[in-house]
């Protein structure tokens, strides 16, 4: 038995040697996101954003360095699958970066593996607040629900919507949205009249919304993961006549994700939400991004996952450019966690090196009809450079 163990150890050491990334001229980036199943749209959007960035900026890479993107489908909220895929990307494909993750449960499963393998993991959407603490190799360019929902709560309380009911998907980001919104509304003198959580997978929104309608709160805050559930929720909201009953809806960008707006008809017109990105933003960096996106993928609308994929790839490219393609995981993490830009499609943002989490503007937007007849989220107020409030309220021991 002992001899066998020694043999295994020797085999491991041999494999470890062949793994050393030094001198590699092809940088391998493993993308794990959702490509199939009912939850795929944000994953596909993210993939388009990051692919587009890599395509348009391949010319900016140092001489002789290439980027190879290896894509894996986590099939939705399937943490065990996500973890296995990450393991395979590390052990078989020898990737130097892991990136992607639409859904927090998947990212939470990958995080300990990033630690074990010492591979930087660029989270391009998953928004559970404590995710960045699960591994020193996690860096996030997206947002946390606390970060986005708390300003929404503050804004609502200050604008006569201080009597609110919350309804969220029952998983970490949903709890965060609920917690953030409640903290925000209470800080600004409002109050919460009730809260409900519904299942994340295959939810039926009708009974939840019917009950809320019967209770008749003045304001209703909703969170669902951005994507097909957004449209489903808005349609149920409309079918049950909550708006007609005088219930004011406020939400985060997830429910009014730009790519789903065209599927919602006129239902969301006038709804106020908080978010980090709107496709209609006139910022030149965003117009260039939207134009490139629509040229590459005709008929599609870029949304916040697409923007986060784009920015995440920009962060990885900066590591490659600054180091000429030769870097250790620690060097890569150093550059990633000091990343800063003023030129993202969302506006300025930077990574806080202490938390490895994103600091960015949170915009208050209203759904309006544009001149071309399309609905869009239009910004009318800004909370500048917000960092994750949860991390401040729960200092790491």
């Amino acid at each position, binding site marked *: 038995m002992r001899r066998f163990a020694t043999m295994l150890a020797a085999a491991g050491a041999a494999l470890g040697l062949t793994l050393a990334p030094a001198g590699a001229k092809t940088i391998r980036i493993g993308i794990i996101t959702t490509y199939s199943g009912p939850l795929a749209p944000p994953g596909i959007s993210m993939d388009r954003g990051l692919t587009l960035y890599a395509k348009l900026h391949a010319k900016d890479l140092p001489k002789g360095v290439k980027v190879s993107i290896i894509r894996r489908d986590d099939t939705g*909220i399937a943490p065990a699958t996500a973890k296995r895929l990450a393991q*395979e990307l590390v052990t078989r494909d020898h990737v130097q970066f892991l990136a992607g993750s639409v859904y927090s449960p998947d990212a*939470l499963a990958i995080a300990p593996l990033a630690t074990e393998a010492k591979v930087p993991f660029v989270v391009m959407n998953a928004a559970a607040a404590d995710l960045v603490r699960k591994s020193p190799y996690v860096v996030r360019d997206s947002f946390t629900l606390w970060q986005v929902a708390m300003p929404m709560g503050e804004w609502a309380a200050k604008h006569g919507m201080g009597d609110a009911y919350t309804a969220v998907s029952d998983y970490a980001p949903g709890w965060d949205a609920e917690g953030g919104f409640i903290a925000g509304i209470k800080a600004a003198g409002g109050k919460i009249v009730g809260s409900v959580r519904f299942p994340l997978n295959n939810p039926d929104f009708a009974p939840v919304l019917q009950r809320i309608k019967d209770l008749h709160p003045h304001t209703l805050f909703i969170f669902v993961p951005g994507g097909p559930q957004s449209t489903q929720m808005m349609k149920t909201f409309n079918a049950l006549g909550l708006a007609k009953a005088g219930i004011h809806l406020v939400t985060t960008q997830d429910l009014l994700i730009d790519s789903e707006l065209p599927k919602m008809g006129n239902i969301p017109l006038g709804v106020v939400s908080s978010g980090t990105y709107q496709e209609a933003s006139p910022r030149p960096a965003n117009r260039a991004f939207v134009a490139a996106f629509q040229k590459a993928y005709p008929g599609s609308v870029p949304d916040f996952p697409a923007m986060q994929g784009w920015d995440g790839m920009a962060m990885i490219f900066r590591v490659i450019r600054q180091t000429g393609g030769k870097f250790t995981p620690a060097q890569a993490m150093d550059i990633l966690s000091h990343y800063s830009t003023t030129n993202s499609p969302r506006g300025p943002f930077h990574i806080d090196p202490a938390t490895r989490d994103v600091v960015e503007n949170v915009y208050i937007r209203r759904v309006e009809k544009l001149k071309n007849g399309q609905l869009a989220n239009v910004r009318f107020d800004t909370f500048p450079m917000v960092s994750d409030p949860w991390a401040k309220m729960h200092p790491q021991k």
Partner: protein
Amino acid sequence: MSAADPVGALAARHRWRWPEALPWLAAIAAFFLFPGYLALGAQILASILYGLSIDLALGYGGIVTLGQAAFFGTGAYTAGLLAAHGFGAPEPGLIAAGLAAAALGALSGLAVLRLSGLAQLMATLMVAAMLQSAADKASTITGGADGLQNMAVGKVLGLFAFGLYGRTAYLYALVVLFVCFLGMRALVHSPFGRSLVGMRENAARMTALGAPVFARRLIAYAIAAGMAGVSGALYAQSTGFVAPDSLGFDRSGNILVMLLLGGIGRLYGAFIGVPLFMVAQDRLSDLDPAYWYFWIGLGLVLMVRFARGGLLGLAARWPAGRMRRE
């Protein structure tokens, strides 16, 4: 088979034939040939055990089940919760998982086995769905949809840690599968196993013959549940993670497809169907991360059209075929 010597005929069933060594030789060869695929390999081995449990319940016992994930998930959560609360030694975790799942199998079997056909199918489905909702909701215990965090699985035999490359996980799963398989093989070839086949074919006749149909089915169902539980625990320990999808419908449905692919009620169906399905899934999703389900679906349609009874059924149609449906 000679009717004159029933004892000899039963004993002959226990005799090993040389093709039965093939799966084990292949598994050992795979360990050395595909060092980068051992994580997947460990999951395949665990799934074969899961397939065997379905084969015992459905293939031999004739119990129509679409809810085997209830036991898989129970085993996974048992092992996971033990590991998350400081009892990380894998072997006791495995045994506890098997016992917990078997107990649940016996308990739910009391209700499920009183039904038959479609009603039975729905009842098994409901047991799994209820457990999944409970796991989703009890997030303080299970972590809810985010899955069970902070599992600390100990070393196998106190010596071999579960590493990134899955070597320990693979060999551990292989040994557990082999031990469970020996038990299952002895069971289905025993008079008890023969009586299960009899009940599957004609339960009324077996009752008339004086066989305790309900009790024997209940025992078979509980054993199958225990095997599924051990398989779930293998999964949980080798990935260091459990989430509610381990109780989900996909987990119940896919394994059935894999078993049908290999051949049901043939003991070796899982050894063919599971690796074939999971390797195809892995390769196809590599080639085409967005639309790989299409190719899986196409393969299954062709399979159902041209090879009913699974691949082993196909092999049995050859004159020299030895793998008869029992």
